[in-house]
């Protein structure tokens, strides 16, 4: 038997190594000092990334997990280190991302005494974690960490936090890694579908005249791209994706019609509203995709294939609920599915698409540089094959609309929580997995200023990332709502930016500013040539809006489309005053 005397701190790293983790994002401090001291012995196996803020560590672990499908790991000290992780945990929770956060805690003897930097982090994070642990006995440490990874990646994945008091890290025991299989009665593997369910599903598809597939994040997590496309091709069913479903099915596929929801394509929303059968695959009918619930796809029967039974029948009543892993269920369905003819339905959706395309900014000349045009150029300049990480706001929706993704895990974005500041750290995290694709971080001027402190991390770690700041001088998405619903009172949305070129210069980076459409690609080429981080600031039209849009409280098909351009070439929403 391989028994050695190890400290708790060493056991932490032993367990992390056993999970095949080779990169950890973290920040040291008093209560986690023993673990950091022991890290020295594991340097050959684990690369530690020193972040600039613990929120950054959680987003990096998150970005790493989304890009790789593996569990991301973050580490922090007790108290403020741990509380700084809450936003990142919540972000991962809402988007079902498997991360494990390890925090130091004050010594077990003083827990409960309001000791220096003591925070009840397990109590605080119950609502934003899938599960969490406070380890009070060194003999339980290894089992607990092993369980934490298991919980994070099993079923519907999610974040798990393990809180370890300092004295537990310092104690030592004769250690042997628990090789036994994990036995957790509370964590159940989802079943496949029953024969009856499969038959019903097939019957419903055969009976439908206007079926439509709703493709969600579950496709990517379950790696069910092939199965979804096969079903779609075999039965001729058009597909729309959610924001997090982007990349789950190739955008260029003739049966893939684009994104649904608040800023989705008009023809996709129209198709959902007129469908007589919805097949929801690994998605959760979020309010951003349904519009007003009462009138959501009123004439359709609904099938919901979902790994989390608590999502089934939560927002939308469905006729056929199937609790299970998407890939497993569709592998049961596909061999039995016969060819269907839905030509007239597909033609109808296509005609809506043709009608709508004319209103698209992408087909219009503008004097100002438009965010949409920049994104489209980035798509061209990367041949549609980059790993894109976006932040939150107008630029995020523009990315979803104008960057066409062919592969799973090529768009990482905070969908459920909409966490501004996500992109730079998540992109840094992803770069530790993605070695082949170019990485582009598309970020608004507001969002960038939330976590731009991680530029330091990117430089210190010499990450090969490209940062594209879409600078519109505003918290643009909020400004859009103010323009539409608050009579254009721009309360606290104009935002000052630093000189980003100089800022990057302070970190020793060469950076670029682009104000003309013609300069986008040439400047990208310069950035692409640099090894290490590069930064381009795109100065874009301040008053642009993201169209189309379903206003809150409206039905899904009641979309506001872009007003057709007046003849002087100025956008109708353009205001003359300068905000900065």
């Amino acid at each position, binding site marked *: 038997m391989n028994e050695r005397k190890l400290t708790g701190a060493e056991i932490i790293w032993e367990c992390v190594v056993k999970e095949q983790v080779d990169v950890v994002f973290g920040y040291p401090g008093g209560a986690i000092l023993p673990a950091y001291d022991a890290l020295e012995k594991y340097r050959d196996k684990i690369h530690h990334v020193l972040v600039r803020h613990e929120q950054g560590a959680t987003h990096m672990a998150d970005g790493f997990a989304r890009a790789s499908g593996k569990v991301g790991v973050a580490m922090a000290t007790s108290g403020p280190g741990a509380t700084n992780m809450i936003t990142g945990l919540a972000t991962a929770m809402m988007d079902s991302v498997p991360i494990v956060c390890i925090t130091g805690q004050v010594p077990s003897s003083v827990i409960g005494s309001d000791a220096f930097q003591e925070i009840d982090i397990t109590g605080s994070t119950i*609502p934003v974690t899938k*599960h969490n642990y*406070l380890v009070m006995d060194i003999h339980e440490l290894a089992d607990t960490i092993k369980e934490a990874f298991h919980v994070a990646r099993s079923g519907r994945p999610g974040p798990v936090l393990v809180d370890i008091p300092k004295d537990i890290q310092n104690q030592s025991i004769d250690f042997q890694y628990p090789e036994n299989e994990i036995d957790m009665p*509370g964590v*159940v593997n989802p*079943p496949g579908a*029953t024969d009856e*369910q499969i038959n019903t599903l097939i019957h419903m598809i055969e009976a439908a005249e206007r079926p439509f597939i709703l493709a969600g994040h579950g496709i990517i997590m379950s790696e069910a791209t092939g199965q979804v496309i096969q079903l779609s091709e075999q039965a001729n069913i058009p597909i729309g994706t959610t924001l997090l479903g982007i990349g789950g099915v190739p955008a260029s596929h003739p049966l893939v019609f684009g994104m649904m929801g608040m800023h989705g394509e008009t023809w996709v929303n129209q198709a959902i509203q007129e469908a007589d059968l919805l097949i929801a695959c690994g998605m959760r009918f979020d309010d951003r995709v349904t519009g007003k619930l009462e009138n959501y796809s009123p004439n359709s029967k609904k099938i919901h294939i979902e790994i*989390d039974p608590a999502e089934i029948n939560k927002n939308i009543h469905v006729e056929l609920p199937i609790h299970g892993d998407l890939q497993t269920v569709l592998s049961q369905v596909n061999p039995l599915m016969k060819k269907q003819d839905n030509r007239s339905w597909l033609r109808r959706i296509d005609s809506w698409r043709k009608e709508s395309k004319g209103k698209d900014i992408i087909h219009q000349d503008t004097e100002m540089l438009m965010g949409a045009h920049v994104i489209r150029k980035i798509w061209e300049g990367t041949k549609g094959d980059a790993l894109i990480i976006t932040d939150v706001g107008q630029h995020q929706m523009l990315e979803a609309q104008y960057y066409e993704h062919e592969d799973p895990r090529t768009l990482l974005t905070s969908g459920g929580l909409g966490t501004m500041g996500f992109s730079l750290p998540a992109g840094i995290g992803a770069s530790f997995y993605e070695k082949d694709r170019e990485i582009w971080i598309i970020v608004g001027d507001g969002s960038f200023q939330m976590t731009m402190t991680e530029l330091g991390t990117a430089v210190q770690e010499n990450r090969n990332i490209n940062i594209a700041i879409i600078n519109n001088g505003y918290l643009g998405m909020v400004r859009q709502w103010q323009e539409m619903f608050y009579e254009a009172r721009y309360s606290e949305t104009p935002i000052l930016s630093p000189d980003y070129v100089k800022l990057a210069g302070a970190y020793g980076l060469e950076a670029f500013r682009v104000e003309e459409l013609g300069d986008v690609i040439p400047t990208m080429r310069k950035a692409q040539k640099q090894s290490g981080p590069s930064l381009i600031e795109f100065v874009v039209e301040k008053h642009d809006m993201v169209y189309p849009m379903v206003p809150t409280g409206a039905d899904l098909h009641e979309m506001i489309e872009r007003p057709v351009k007046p003849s002087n070439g100025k956008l109708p929403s353009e205001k003359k005053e300068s905000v900065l």
Partner: protein
Amino acid sequence: MKQTLIALVEDKPGVLNRIASLFRRRNFNIESLVVGKSETSGISRMTIVANEVDRRKRGNIYFNLLNLVNVVAVKDVSELACVTREFIFIKVQAGPDKLNELNQLVKKFGARIVDMGLDTVIIETADEKEVIDELVESLAPFNISEIMRTGKMSMRRGRTHKVSSEKINATAEEVNWQPEQIHTYHN
């Protein structure tokens, strides 16, 4: 009718906190919760009564509970044959002159007098909610000064619904529920 759930949960610190947190965060109303050791060591059995009539929401409560890592099994027994009890202590102000009358009343309800002070009496009973409500009402004239009451405990009638120590695997049939018919894990 209220929703009654029986849950088997791991006997670990913070489990109650997780359940309370779930109900609070999802805006589910707990009416009562009773918990204690079960026949299996390391596992507690709980009866939870929730104030939700909508079937879809009831299903959602059920599955959210089941999703908790420390929750081993849940059974919705709202519509199943169960023995149900609540327990109550009632302190009334009653001197020796009232004892006779009080004794008769207590007997009628199958309750017991468990303590007699100078001018106070403590009565206890375990019964169904309606009977207890009635007892409390009947005791009102005696000047009730304190009530201590538990929530509802339920146990299914008939054959043993026992959780074995082995892993409980949900089959498709048990978990895939129609809104009209909530199938659940055995417990």
